[in-house]
């Protein structure tokens, strides 16, 4: 565990995602895979055995055609701040919550592959390498030099593009800025989103978009009653979209959003 340093002004990086703007194009998913060296799927992989650090789900209002209305929701690690479920359960401390940034980081080099953290995560934001990653011949040249590829048998997940945070820290140091100030950077998904539905920022900075969005009435967090204090604030003007913050509705009532 990284111990808290009292001189560092802690950031709490978070996001606001406007579900009303998301077109479900998947640019965020592709940009994330490019940035983090996520390999192409094995031939036998399915949507339950794939590696999608950010995944866009299609949700709908549960009504039959033609009353159906759908929306798209990008889901990645919610970076829980309160009693982070995955950090608590990892037997060899391969998950750590950085007090300087609030980012929940995963150390693939220490991961045993027991998948307890996957069972613990209610947002299904963690992914296991069921196969050894393989890139077509020559494609390794196109990998991002700032991120280590992982081997099979370990868990991986979104870390708010930690490589970019490091690069921002180095740039700040090169610019002579004090080390104790939080840096400003943009993860790959927020940068790639064509409709600008995803915004990233420091929740501790009242001027940042996520901090402002967090205060608005139409913002919600997923499974808020679990009290995990997540850092991703979703926004929508539509009531039925805001209901995805709740627990699943019972089967067969017709009100559940069953597509994912």
């Amino acid at each position, binding site marked *: 565990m990284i111990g808290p340093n009292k001189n560092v002004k802690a950031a709490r990086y978070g996001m606001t995602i406007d579900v009303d703007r998301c077109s479900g194009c998947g640019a965020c998913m592709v940009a994330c895979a490019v940035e983090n060296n996520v390999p192409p799927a094995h031939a036998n992989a399915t949507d339950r055995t794939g590696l999608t650090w950010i995944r866009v789900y299609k949700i709908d209002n549960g009504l039959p055609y033609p009353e159906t209305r759908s929306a798209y929701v990008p889901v990645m690690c919610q970076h829980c701040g309160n*009693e982070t479920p995955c950090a608590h359960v990892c037997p060899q*401390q391969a998950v750590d919550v950085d007090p300087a940034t609030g980012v929940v980081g995963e150390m693939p080099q220490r991961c*045993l592959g027991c998948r307890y953290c996957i069972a613990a995560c209610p947002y299904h934001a963690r992914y296991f390498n069921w196969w050894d990653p393989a890139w077509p011949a020559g494609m390794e040249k196109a990998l991002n030099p700032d991120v280590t590829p992982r081997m099979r048998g370990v868990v991986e997940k979104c870390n708010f593009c930690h490589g970019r945070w490091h690069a921002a820290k180095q740039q700040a140091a090169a610019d002579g800025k004090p080390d104790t100030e939080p840096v400003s950077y943009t993860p790959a998904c927020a940068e790639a989103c064509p409709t600008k539905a995803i915004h990233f920022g420091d929740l501790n900075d009242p001027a940042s978009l996520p901090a402002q969005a967090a205060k608005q009435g139409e913002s919600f967090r997923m499974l808020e009653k679990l009290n995990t204090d997540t850092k991703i604030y979703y926004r929508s003007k539509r009531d039925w979209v805001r*209901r995805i*913050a709740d627990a699943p509705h019972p089967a*067969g009532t017709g009100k559940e959003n069953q597509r*994912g």
Partner: protein
Amino acid sequence: MDREFIARGVKRCSTGKFLLWILPWAALLAFGLYSAGLCLIKGLNQTNMDNRFAFGLWIFLDLTVIALGAGAFFTGFLLYILKIKDLRAVINSAVVIGLVCYSGAVCVLGVDVGQPLRAWFTFWYPNVHSMLTEVTFCITCYLTVLTIEYLPIVLKNRKLRQIPSFLVFEFELHKLIYVLAGVGTFLSFFHQGSLGGLYGVLRGRPFAFREGFAVWPSTFFLFIISAAAVGPSFVLLTTWLVEKISRKKLVKPEVFSLLGRISGLLLSVYVLAKTVDTLIWINRTSPESGFPAAQYYSWQPFGTWILFAEIVLFGLVPALMLLAPQLRARTGWLVTAAMMACCGVALNRFVMTVQTLALPTLSFDRFLSYFPSWQETGTFLAVVAFGVLVYSISFRYFQLFPSERELRRF
């Protein structure tokens, strides 16, 4: 041919017949080792587990066999600490069962993780908050204890005891037996409990999450009680099965009745505790997480029947059967009740492992289904075959049942 290795005063079948018995189990073991080998070499994509069903058949079986193997520590506790002398008749058998269950579970765990070479990381970088760290430490230590408890049984073999240093070693070890039993009880208390704690602490899975006492959720204590309850039942079952297969009387009938009574008593305590816990969970714990309990049982095929089956049909009913002296006296009823008790605990482990992961947590999730692949089933069957093989060899060459010689005269 191997007459010299078999103890005096007991009768065992011919070597040829024994080999005939061993052969199919050895073949099953070989197939199972091949399945496990595939999983180790090609990776866990050989299984049908996925990112939603991160735990499958193996974890369910690990939890079940460890609960069933609890007879080892609990019988030891009752015999050496509480001095219930009658249980001396079954303690050796219980230790072998325990050894088989725990070593099989540890081997399966070695295959179940993505990086078996990193197994020692848990000891090197332990996380004091994690139940799984606790499980790992206690199970490894307890396996060591069981191995040490198994040694005297091995060393008492007719041929091996001819080596004087073995005899002396075994004698000295026996002096420590009370210490070992105490340590074993202590360790078992914690790992049986923390296996329950594994699921009870999952705040992200309100189906499994429970409140509790200090850092221990209620499932911690429920697992201990249920394991203690089912341990004697499983010892009873295996003893009866071995008697049937070997066509010998191995223990006095009172021992069966004693085991049944102990099991029934603890099972009743367990059913009471479980009922209270379930009521608290339905009315307080789960709704406070925003998950009304009724919606869990709306997802077919896991309707409310599964709750009823776990607590009443395979919990209360066998408890009452085992407590009733008239039923305990009849072997048929006794064995049926013991089997139902074991099924009840297996069902409880199933609900905690499989049903927890099948249920959706996000409102746009689906109810998921999972069926193990043949490689997973093969690996599980390897554990069964390994168990039968070790037990068969122990039964043939070691004195598992001290009363056997005595009962032969009758």
